[in-house]
């Protein structure tokens, strides 16, 4: 069943056999998958369940999200470990009406996101809150091909009470109470990495977040990458590959693809742009956001033009800081 139909009929999740069939239908051979950012948007359909890699302001696939908004995608359900300004953009652009995460605001430095508040408090959109570990275990169950993972958190809390999708359960081994959290298998995952080859064998430096489980849980993966490297380079250190090619459907080379967020070891967040952004949108979550989207999402002709709007000085400064993590 297609994502849109599932959403329309209220059916929560594909069955195990449907998931397997979707994988088997895909061409999983070692083949060239490099496409443009614009072409990659065709892998996401209206109404899809979209898993987003990275966490907060780190390794956010901002370029891909930006492209999906420009392509006019609607009705997406987006899941991510922690959602930052990517969520503001997704709600305010109309691309997404349902976020599944553990924490949602631009970042601790700026208090509560007025954009999130505006959309959620008005009841226009849905924000499902799970504990951070529960998010991880939902992706993990999806990656492992099982319907759930058992956890020992969320129990007793109101977070749990808001999630009837999870099931309390007496362990048949120990009699202990456990919470079973259901597998999350997004239709498509958007993940940004430091490097991968043209087939989609991806290496991720530093913080991994939940990206490996997310990639294996999703039916399709779109990779954006700072740099495409040769398959030979991948094969010289196969233990550094974190996502295997056969999980990947599209590869987009997109330098500074997380801007204005961070990419580990390559650039830190562009905090001046973030300050400007937060000032604008938290000042007026409707008009400010509209202004930002017009100027920074629909305005530029390309991702490079968007980067130019951030400004070369800020990019270089962020890159200098990003690379400094490797200073001894």
């Amino acid at each position, binding site marked *: 069943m297609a994502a849109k139909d599932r959403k329309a009929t209220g059916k929560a999740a594909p069955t195990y056999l449907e998931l397997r069939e979707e994988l088997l239908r895909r061409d999983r051979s070692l083949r060239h998958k490099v496409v443009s950012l614009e072409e990659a948007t065709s892998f996401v359909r209206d109404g899809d369940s979209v898993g987003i890699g990275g966490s*907060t302001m780190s390794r956010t696939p901002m370029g891909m999200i930006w492209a999906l908004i420009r392509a006019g995608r609607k009705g997406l359900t987006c899941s991510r470990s922690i959602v930052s300004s990517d969520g503001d953009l997704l709600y305010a652009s109309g691309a997404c009406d349902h976020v599944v995460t553990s924490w949602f605001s631009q970042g601790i430095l700026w208090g509560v996101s007025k954009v999130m508040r505006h959309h959620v408090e008005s009841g226009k959109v849905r924000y499902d809150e799970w504990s951070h570990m529960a998010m991880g275990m939902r992706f993990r169950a999806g990656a492992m091909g099982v319907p759930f993972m058992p956890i*020992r*958190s969320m129990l*007793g809390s109101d977070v749990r009470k808001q999630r009837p999708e999870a099931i309390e359960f007496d362990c048949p081994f120990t009699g202990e109470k456990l919470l079973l959290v259901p597998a999350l298998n997004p239709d498509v995952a958007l993940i940004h990495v430091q490097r991968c080859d043209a087939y989609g064998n991806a290496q991720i430096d530093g913080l991994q977040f939940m990206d490996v489980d997310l990639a294996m849980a999703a039916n399709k993966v779109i990779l954006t990458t700072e740099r495409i490297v040769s398959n030979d380079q991948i094969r010289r250190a196969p233990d550094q590959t974190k996502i295997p090619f056969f999980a990947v459907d599209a590869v987009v080379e997109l330098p500074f693809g997380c801007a204005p967020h961070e990419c580990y070891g390559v650039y830190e967040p562009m905090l001046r742009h973030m300050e400007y952004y937060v000032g604008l949108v938290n000042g007026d979550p409707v008009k400010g956001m509209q202004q930002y989207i017009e100027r920074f999402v629909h305005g530029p002709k390309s991702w490079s033009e968007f980067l130019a709007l951030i400004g070369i000085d800020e990019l270089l400064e962020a890159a200098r800081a990003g690379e400094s993590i490797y200073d001894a």
Partner: protein
Amino acid sequence: MLRKHGYSAAELLTILSARQLSDGQVVFAGVGIPLLAATLAQRLRCPGLTILFEGGVIGAFIEPGKLPPSTNDQRCTKRANMVLGSAEVLLLLQRGYVDVGFMGGAQVDQYGNLNSSFIGDPARPKTRLPGTGGGNDIASLAHMIVAMKHEKRRFVEHVDFVTSPGYLRGGDTRRASGLLAGGTFRVVTDLAVFGFDADERRMQVMSLNPGVSREELQDNTGFVLAFAPHLGVTEPPTDQELELLRELDPDRLYTG
């Protein structure tokens, strides 16, 4: 507040929180005051303190003046012993490797429950707050220190929403709900330091901060306070504590 003492409320809070940690402990610290307090303790008294961050970091040494904007940023990994997945680092709590969880919240109640999700009725919230992040997991799976600014609207009889469980409804209710380990054991504010009694699991004042009276504390608290039999007075911040703290956060990113 408290400017008269030559330090800010946030600085006092950070320094008092840092004192709750011991050398050799494994502490899971949230962003903001907890991160800063753990780093302060590590540099001041506890060189063998192992700090964990939700982004997936074990044994970090945050550099002075380079505080991270979240616990998911690369700055958290500087000179860390290990970087691992976000789920993996939380699973360390579940497995039992962690001595202390350490975080804040928007509201706390008399049983040490924290709210960082909703102000008002969750069905029609006055304010939708950011949510739990790892807070629920840390509070569910470890012994907790809570660091918070002390305000009447934040110190309430019952939180509007239990995001991160303390002792739930007190007594045995935490264990009965399936949370077999952990529980809030300290709440540190700019006015006082609190513990919990062993039976009712209700918050009680252990020591008042310098210059704070019982009455002032009660006036700023949304429930009737209990006081420990041997009520102490918190030692004020030392020059060394303040100096080191200001080195760590020269831009007042967290202590502003």
